[in-house]
C-alpha cells in the first residue's frame, strides 16, 4: 500500500523506452541476415536428410542427432525470423511460462516408461 505516490508505469526501463520500433533504416540492415538464415536453413535441411542415412551406432543416437539439427533450425527461425533475439521483456516472460509447461508436458514421455499396463 505504501508505494511511491507518483503514478509510474510498470516495468518501464530506459532501455526499452528508447528501443521503440524498427525504423525503415533498421529493417534494411537486416535483410541480408534474413536471406542468410534462409540459406542456412536450406543447407541444414539437406544435412539432416543426409545424416539420417548415416548410422550413429544406436537408434537413440540417431534420434538425438536429428533432434539437435531440428532444434538448431527451429532456434534460427525463432531468433531471427520471429525476432526473438531482440524482443521485449514481456514476450520473454510469457514464453518462459510456456517453456516450463511444455517441459512438464513432455515429461509424459518419461512417464511412459512407468506405464505397467501397456509395457
Amino acid at each position, binding site marked *: *500500500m*505504501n*508505494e511511491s*505516490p507518483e*503514478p*509510474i*508505469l*510498470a*516495468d518501464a526501463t530506459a532501455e526499452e523506452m528508447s528501443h521503440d520500433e524498427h525504423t525503415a533504416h533498421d529493417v534494411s540492415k537486416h535483410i541480408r541476415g534474413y536471406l542468410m538464415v534462409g540459406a542456412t536453413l536450406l543447407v541444414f535441411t539437406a544435412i539432416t536428410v543426409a545424416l539420417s542415412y548415416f548410422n550413429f551406432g544406436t537408434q537413440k543416437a540417431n534420434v538425438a542427432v536429428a533432434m539437435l539439427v531440428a532444434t538448431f533450425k527451429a532456434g534460427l527461425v525463432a531468433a531471427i525470423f520471429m525476432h526473438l533475439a531482440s524482443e521485449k521483456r*514481456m514476450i520473454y516472460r*510469457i514464453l518462459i*511460462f*510456456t517453456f*516450463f*509447461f511444455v517441459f*512438464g*508436458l513432455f515429461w*509424459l514421455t518419461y*512417464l*511412459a516408461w*512407468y*506405464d*505397467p*499396463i*501397456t509395457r
Partner: protein
Amino acid sequence: MDASSGLASHPHAEHDPHHHDAGHDHHELPFWRKYLISTDHKVIGIQYGITGLIFLFFGFSLMMLMRWQLAYPGQPVPVIGNLLGRMFGPGAMDNGKMTAEFYNSLGAMHGTIMIFLGIVPIAFAAFGNFVVPLQIGAPDMTFPKINMASYQAFFFGGLVMLFSFFVPGGAAKGGWTSYTPLAIISDKGPTYDPIFNGQTLWLLGFILLITSSLLGAVNFIATIIQLRAKGMTWMRLPFFVWAQFVTAFLLLLAFPPLESAIVMQLMDRIAGTSFFMPSGLVIAGAPLHNSGGGSPLLWQHLFWFLGHPEVYVLILPGMGIVAEIIANNTRKPLWGYKSLVFAALVLGFLSFIVWAHHMWLTGMGSVVSAFFQTTTMIISIPSVIILSAFFISLWGGSIRFNVPMLFATAFLPMFGIGGLTGIPLAFNSADLYLHDTYYVIAHFHYIVAPGTIFAVFAGIYFWFPKATGRMMNEFWGKVHFWPSLICMNMIFLPMFLQGMLGMHRRWYDGGQGWTLAGEKVWGLSGFQWNTPISIAAWVMGLAQLPFIINFFWSIKHGKKVDDNPWEATTLEWTAPSPPPHGNFATTPTVYRGPYEYSLPGRETDFTMQSEPMRESDRKAYEAAAAVH
C-alpha cells in the same frame, strides 16, 4: 473516452476521420446489434453470465433427476417421468423409470455442463469480461471482435452439447472424464452414425468450448498487460484482476493439450485409429478389429494435464471475487495483498505438475506416485496462504453483513472443508480406498458448489448495481442465502460418510444391492442416506427461485443507487452505473493501491484508487511503515 490520451505516445497516426462520431454510434444501434452481437465487453460479460446461469441451473436439474433414481431406485420419476419418456424415447425412460444408460448420460453431462458451460463461463468469462476492464481503467478489451467470437464459440459449443441429448442413443455416457477405451467404443452399435452420436458430439462441442476459452484467455491477458490505466502498476491491481490473470494463463496453456487429446479421440471414433486403444482388446467376447498399439493411460495423462489446472480455473476467480467483497465489507485493507498475489502465482505454477494424483489407481510406478504426492502436498501451501489471509482480513473489522458479504464469508469455511478433506486423497495409500467414492464427490463439490458458486452469487449481488444501476433486494437475497447454505451442507456432508463406507460414485441403484452400503451410520444405512440428500437437493432447487425472481425483478424495479453504492475503492466504481460504451467519462489515473479503506486523515473511510495523494496520506503511510 480515450484511455491513452494522458500518455505521450498517443496513436495519432491512425486517427480515423470518423472517430469523433464513434462515441455516439451506440445510441442508434438496433437491438440485435447492441445485445446479440455486441463487441462491448460489458454486454459480452452479461451474455456470458446469463447463458452460464441458465446452463448452471440446467446442469443442476440433471442432478435433481439423478437424485430421484438414487433415493428411490427403479421407481417411476413423478410428474415429468412420462414427459421425458416421450422426449427421449424408451431407451432413456422406460415407462417413467430411468434406464441405466440415461442415468450415465445425466451423470456425464452434469459434470460437463456444470464445469465447462456453467462455472467457467460465469466465474471466469462473465465476471472477467464485465469487471476486469473496468477495474484496470480500460475502455474495452484489447480485441473486442475476438471477444465476441469467444462468446459465440461458447454458445454454439453449448448448443452442440444440448443437441447431443436428442440423437439416437442419447448424450455422452462415458463420465465427464471420457476415459478410454470405454468412451471410444460407446454407442458403436449396429446403428452407429459417425457424427450424430453422444460421444462424438461431446468431442465436437468440446472443441468449440476450448476455442472459446483460448480466445477469451488471449484477450484477458493482453488486456491486463496492455490496457492498464496510467499509474495502474502490477502491484496496484485489485486481487480479482490478478486471479483472472493467473486463471487466463491456466486456460491458455492447459486447454491445448486436452484439445490435442480430443482431436486424437475424435480420430479414434471417426477414422478408426487406436491412439487410446491398447492391442488385443476384447469387447463383449469378441476381439476388437483395430490396429491397437495405443495407450488408455495417455488419455488420462492428457486429460488431467488440463483437468488439474482446471480445478484452479474454477476456484481462483471465486477467490478473487471474495477478496474484493471482504475488503469492501470489513472496511479495512485486505491482509497480505502481496502474499495473496504470490500465492496465486505459485498456485498457478504448481497446478501444472500435480495432475497424476487423479490417477493413483492406474498403477503408475511408485517413483511417479511419490513425486506427484509431494507436489500435491506442496500445492496446499499457497491455498492455505490465501484462505488464511482472508480469515485474518476479517479480524478486527467492523463487518457489514450484507448479502454479498454473507455469501463471501460462507465461502471461507466451505472452501476450507473442501480443501482439508482433499488431503487424504492426496496420499495414494488413503486414496486407494477412497478413490471414486462419494467421499471424492463431497470433497470437490465443497470446493466448487458452496465454494465457487457461492462466490459467484456474492459477485452477482455485489456488481449488480454496477451493471444495472439498481440494487438487488436485500431481504430476498437473505431468503436465497440461508436455505442454500443449509441445503449445500445437508447434501454434501453425508456424502463423506457414504464415501468412507466405500460407496462408489457411479452406482446406478444408489447402493441398494451392495452389502457395504447397508452398514448403518447415525441410524441410517449408507444407501438410506440418499433420501435426505436428495430431498435437500430438491429443496436447494426451490431455494434458487428467490434468486431468479429477485434477479429479473431488480433489473426493472430494484432500488436506484448512485455510482458507488458499496463505498468501494476500485476503479469500476468511478464509472457511471451502468457504464456507457467506452466506460469512463474521463480517463482515470491511479495513485494508490486497491484497498485503501479507513485511511487515517481522510473524511471518508474509503479512498478510491483515482484519488490524488495528499500530505496527510503520506504521513499515514509513514506511520504505518513505522509500526511494521
